[in-house]
């Protein structure tokens, strides 16, 4: 018989080593589909590395993919800290994007110094509103937010399709369900010429650092942690739970909204209903991998983005089905999850004795 017990002390070397080992193991697992598809795994690993780190372009692409994950990862991390299960980052992302194109595509013809901040603020507000509604339903009616936020994702995306065929449709778009483009001065300035990486990344990193300090050192963060750990005791101690929850909800929704702003005003320029390939859901994974730590979110986003971009590019180089990319991402996700477990727990063998009956 075996037993699982927490490790007395988590050694420094294991916190570094175990994720690395997990990554290696996940690569070994990835060899199975590679072999099944008749490819040489070693060549594949080299191609994968090249796909992420092989050039400035590759690195920039990886960071571009990581950018929205940072926002949605932060959104989930903050909400989950307060045990507010926001599964609706996907929908909130679209709300942010909707706000961004609504104000950014010519409604206000402002100079860049005004327009971009306006887009950011309104996009954040839209996302925040998207989380405020389910939080209200939770607080007022006790409606479970996992369900409401999940269902809202579908509703918002369908609503978006309606807008894109109606008021938001680009009159110059030849009937395509897409919005008019955001004005040039409303776009996040690019970071490198001729590459997609944009300053939305800077904002994301900045927000992660701010979130880290707020959670750790501010009264607001203290309350958030107290509510999340034990809301009954927090209430007893005079903390206004509802106010805390709403604060967290607005922030979480706002961050998810910014993911939409960053994608639409940083990358694509206009809005379509397929803006996000599931960034909202991936954000949950990122947040949990990061142990709900804002700084951890930065690392986890880069990790997920690297694996995806690397595996995707490798599948192309090797002529294997590009569904391989998601497969490798999911396998490494599960491996890292188990790795995190191994660094915190140990498995011990139990003694034996006589059994009655």
């Amino acid at each position, binding site marked *: 018989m075996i037993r699982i017990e927490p490790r007395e002390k988590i050694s420094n070397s294991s916190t570094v080593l175990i994720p690395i080992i997990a990554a290696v193991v996940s690569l070994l697992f990835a060899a199975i589909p590679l072999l099944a598809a008749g490819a040489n795994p070693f060549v594949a690993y080299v191609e994968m590395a090249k796909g992420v780190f092989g050039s400035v372009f590759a690195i920039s692409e990886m960071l571009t993919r990581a950018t929205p994950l940072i926002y949605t990862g932060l959104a989930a991390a903050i909400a989950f800290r307060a045990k507010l299960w926001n599964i609706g980052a996907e929908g909130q992302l679209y709300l942010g994007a909707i706000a961004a194109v609504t104000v950014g595509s010519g409604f206000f013809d402002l100079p860049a110094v005004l327009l971009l901040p306006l887009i950011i603020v309104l996009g954040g507000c839209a996302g925040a509103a998207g989380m405020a509604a389910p939080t209200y*339903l939770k607080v007022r009616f006790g409606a479970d937010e996992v369900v409401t936020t999940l269902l809202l994702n579908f509703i918002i995306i369908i609503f978006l399709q309606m807008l894109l065929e109606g008021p938001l449709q680009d009159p110059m778009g030849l009937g395509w369900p897409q919005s008019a483009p955001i004005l040039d001065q409303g776009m996040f300035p690019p970071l490198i010429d001729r590459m997609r990486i944009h300053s939305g990344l800077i904002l994301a990193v900045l927000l992660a650092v701010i979130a880290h300090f707020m959670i750790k050192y501010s009264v607001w963060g203290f309350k958030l942690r107290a509510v999340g750990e034990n809301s009954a005791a927090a209430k007893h101690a005079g903390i206004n739970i509802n106010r805390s929850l709403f604060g967290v909800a607005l922030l979480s929704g706002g961050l998810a909204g910014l993911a939409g702003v960053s994608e639409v005003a940083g990358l694509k320029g206009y809005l379509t209903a397929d803006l996000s390939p599931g960034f909202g859901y991936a954000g949950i994974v990122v947040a949990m991998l990061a142990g709900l730590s804002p700084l951890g979110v930065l690392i986890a986003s880069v990790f997920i983005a690297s694996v995806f971009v690397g595996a995707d590019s490798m599948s192309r180089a090797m002529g294997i089905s590009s569904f391989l990319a*998601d497969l490798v991402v999911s396998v490494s996700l599960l491996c890292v*999850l188990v790795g995190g*477990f191994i660094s915190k727990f140990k498995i011990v063998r139990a003694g034996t004795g006589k059994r009655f009956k």
Partner: protein
Amino acid sequence: MIDILNILLTDSFWAASLRIATPLIFGVLGALICERSGTLNLGIEGIFVVGAMCGWMATWLGAGLWGGIIVAFICGAFFGLIHAVLTVPLGLSQHVSGLGITLFATSVSYFTYRTALPDVASPPRIEPFQPLDIPVLSDLPFVGLVLFQQTALTWLALLMVVLVWYVLNRTNLGLAIKAVGDNPNSVDAQGLSVYAIRMWAIVIGSALMALGGAFLTMSAFDAFFFGMVNGRGWVCIALVIFASWRPGKALIGALLFGAFDALQVRLQTEMGAFVPGQVFLMAPYVLSIVALVIAARSADYPRALLTPWFKGQR
């Protein structure tokens, strides 16, 4: 209003509702069993895909329809087992593991499918389950069409509702599942294995979810397509809560959703000229939220949901 009434009175509408509800019934029952034992299984969306792919693929390779169903069941159980190992003895985050399983199950299915059939313009078809044609019953007015011209899988789903209800409410096993989802210590102190009960619940629950997927490719349609699960798994997660974790209510929830969906199709067709089509597409989801808000007060969570339990720790 008259339109809606007319629609509600037709047997074909209710037959469609039950048809649309069938995969949801499997899914919501599966999710219900998992959650009753204390584990959220967000792997459901991916397990649907696995069920759809494997059931169909097995049948296509010659396993026969029921052979395909068994394969789907086993494949669902396998991915359930992964989730079970990760979340029960290892106690890892149920959210991440679940989403990870969804991604993993989906990508494995897609990759396998594509590697097996690299170049198909349209996927091969199987001979799917046919509507049961029960001599006298099928010809009865109204219920004949609604109930007795469904496929065997729909009947299996209805049977599962009864079975799950019976197990939960009339057997010791059901007692143990309910108890372990409320307070694992209660089960542990009675000498039962919390791990075993939870893991089996997840494995069996996931296998049921896979049947929901298999229905899509083996009864509702006769081929596998990427993306054809189309969020049905997520809907089940919502329906479980709507159902307050009760099999009977789960059936009602699934039927309601099916009815909204069937109504949506019919209204969109008739009134599409006046109202944007998306309004109707949204309706099932909006109404689900409304129903939840109304039902929320009475929803009592399995208290141990989402909380991992370790032996010998307090």
